[in-house]
């Protein structure tokens, strides 16, 4: 008999629900998403889970495993030896069904970010060292785990005042592009609410891509906004030289 593990999976929708236990035979190297697929094929064909690539490239299968925000495809079941594995949808967003959360708010905000405005036509001449930082940010897979774990969004539900770490990184990659002429500092200060971030770095801790969201992205953005608002003369000079 192969070894078995127990998964306790949230089943329900926005009107409520509860965890249901399933037994799954373990395979070597199994990830939680494999276990979910086993449950679908054998016990619960209608168990809802969002996934695509199963290789941590697409950022679809975000959920909470024993309380921690994780990608289901990248989390090994042997990390939880001897434990029941509790799998629940991301808490910060409304649940659609089972493990699937409604993340449409993130796309609404992404649409509101003014696009890249290059100073010149391509081909660009850019040194690797000038793009290393924005390549780090563009490595984002839009799994929204950072949004899920952000206290401002998760505990205070202040989505009307702060757009969250993913959006900060999107804005940072544009602001830090050497050839971008757009100006998103007022947006950051006002609607996007960069000041709401209190630098607990939880977003950086959960990022499956290892993006240093707070130190490399949000703090420099805060500094730029601070320069503009508390050092107006320096801010104008810097804007002219961007």
């Amino acid at each position, binding site marked *: 008999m192969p070894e078995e593990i127990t998964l306790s999976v949230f089943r329900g*929708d926005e009107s409520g629900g509860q965890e249901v236990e399933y037994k799954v035979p373990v*395979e*070597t*190297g*199994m*990830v939680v998403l*494999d276990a979910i697929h086993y449950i*679908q*094929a054998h016990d619960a*064909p*209608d*168990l*809802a*889970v*969002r*996934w*695509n*690539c*199963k*290789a*941590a*490239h*697409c*950022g*679809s299968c975000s959920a909470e495993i024993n309380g921690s925000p994780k990608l289901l495809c*990248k989390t*090994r079941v042997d990390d939880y030896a001897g434990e029941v594995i509790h799998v629940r949808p991301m808490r910060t967003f409304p649940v*659609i*069904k*089972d493990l*699937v959360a*409604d*993340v*449409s708010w993130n*796309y609404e905000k*992404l*649409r509101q970010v003014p*696009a*890249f405005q*290059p100073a010149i*036509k*391509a*081909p*660009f*001449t*850019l*040194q*690797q060292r000038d*793009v290393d930082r*924005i*390549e780090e940010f*563009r*490595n984002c*897979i*839009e799994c929204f785990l950072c949004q899920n774990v952000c206290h401002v969004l998760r505990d205070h539900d202040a989505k009307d005042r702060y757009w969250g770490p993913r959006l900060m990184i999107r804005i940072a990659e*544009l602001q830090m*592009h050497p050839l971008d002429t757009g100006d998103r500092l007022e947006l950051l200060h006002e609607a996007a609410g960069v000041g709401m971030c209190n630098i607990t770095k939880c977003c950086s801790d959960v990022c499956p891509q290892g993006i240093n969201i707070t130190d490399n992205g949000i703090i420099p953005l805060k500094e730029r906004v601070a320069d503009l608002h508390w050092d107006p003369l320096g801010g104008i000079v810097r804007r002219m030289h961007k």
Partner: protein
Amino acid sequence: MTEEMERHDYDVLVIGAGGAGLRAAIEAAEGGARTAVLGKSLLGKAHTVMAEGGVAAALGNVDPLDGWETHFYDTMRSAHFINDYRMAEIHAKESPDRVLELEYWGAVFDRTPEGRIMQRPFGAHTFRRLAHVGDRTGKELIRTLEQKLMTLDVDSYQEITATRLFKDGDRIAGCLAYYRDDGRFALFTAKAVVIATGGWGKAYKVTSNSWESTGDGAALAFRAGADLADMEMVQFHPTGMTWPPGARGILVTEGVRGEGGLLFNSEGERFMERYDPARKELSSRDVVSRGIYKEVQAGRGTPHGGAWLDITHKGAAFIKRKLPGMYEQLLSLADIDITKSRFEVAPTIHYTMGGLRAAPDTAATNVPGLYAAGECAAGLHGANRLGGNSLSDILVFGRRAGSAAAEFAKNQALPRIDDAEVQAEVERVLAPLARSEGENPYKLHEELQDIMAAHAGIERNGPSLEKGLGRMQELRERAEHQRATGSRRFNPGWHGVFDVQNMALLGEAILRSAIARKESRGAQWRTDFPEELEAEGKVNYVQRMTEQGVELRTEPVPQMPEDLAAFFTRGVAPGLANAAKKE
């Protein structure tokens, strides 16, 4: 009872939101068409995101001798000359502009020391040609297109699945689709429809493809009367993961070999020296896949039935910079540090070269108003696709499909869709939920994959293919009687019913076409016809669904004009020939 539903009218409806679909939608919208794009997943999650190694474009940034002529030459040779030369020509000429356009829209590629877009070597490309961002190029590409799309007036529908195309007389008229979140229907009427739904690698068990690659668009268009071509040509990528079991088939980018990785058998031989002494590890994918397969057959395979891939000699810093995704993937899924140890790889289903037959300049199918671009379309890659040519394909032909569809829509009135047909389709789609007994879609999908692996794998022969066809026809009949439990709300079992139906139809088409092509060429390797035959190289196998059933016919492969044919008479790539001349 008549089901109430949303109704939308568009000039151009794009089905599929991967690279080809988004590029088509961008072009159609910029051409003034009222445009919508439907995606089966969330925006930016489509299979394009998994492309790793790069986008092939003869920019000549690191090898100035490169040019469209050599890219064209490499593509034709790799395709074993059964592809459409005109598509290969357009593709080679337009790829550089499509890449630079991405840079202008915000894509950030790795740089050369001079600050230009970096290009890496890849299998069977004469020159270093793949523009890339580490090993996550597909993500950069789809993210850029997603961000560009958001600046335009395009309606983007997410997590919505099309189940049927409708026609108004001969011309295309739109589709019925349902939303995943609550199962409600929406009817889309459109003057032109672009199919950009990708391939059907999920018909195989060991595959690098995501769950989305079920060939929906190709199957829908085939049922609507569009021609399928070259269906037997299914690409095995030489290097998929072999272990652990759950990770079997997950892609290891060709970039590992591009950046210097070497292949060894269990006896420590660099066996590719036997199969392609000149190009070795960087031979074309069909040759490397067969090489690994033959080594395993000969008893020289690794513990999990593959070959060793070793890049440790390049050093940890280089590997982490050039292949960060691979480093992370092998470490987290298989506990292997590729900077310190070799690892096992084996062929995995990767790409469907065959598909909807599309005109080279416009991506138009034989159904008026219906276009096809990207992996769902046939014609560019012939019997074997070059690595990196897929990302360029979706940009070049996505754009052309969007442009042609918008142009077509300008001269058309809105078509009419017959209400009775819509209601019949609604009933068909809801039927699995109402059945108290029926086939389980998960089990049927597994059986389907078993049939494809057993009969239409890397090595094929006539009797086995015939047997496979019989089994698949029987499975396709059973697929009409599937049952889904639960409600219409985000129900993957219900969704799987239609995936299985689509893959069964296309699987059957693969088997039928593989039976017809009695030779070995590129991805089609028949042990009963081991040679590449001149006569077979002059035809494409084309299938069409009629009221009497599926008809298979041959069409002549388009013959190159003299100026293009001349590239192949010198025994050396055009870029190298020109250089020799100058000296």
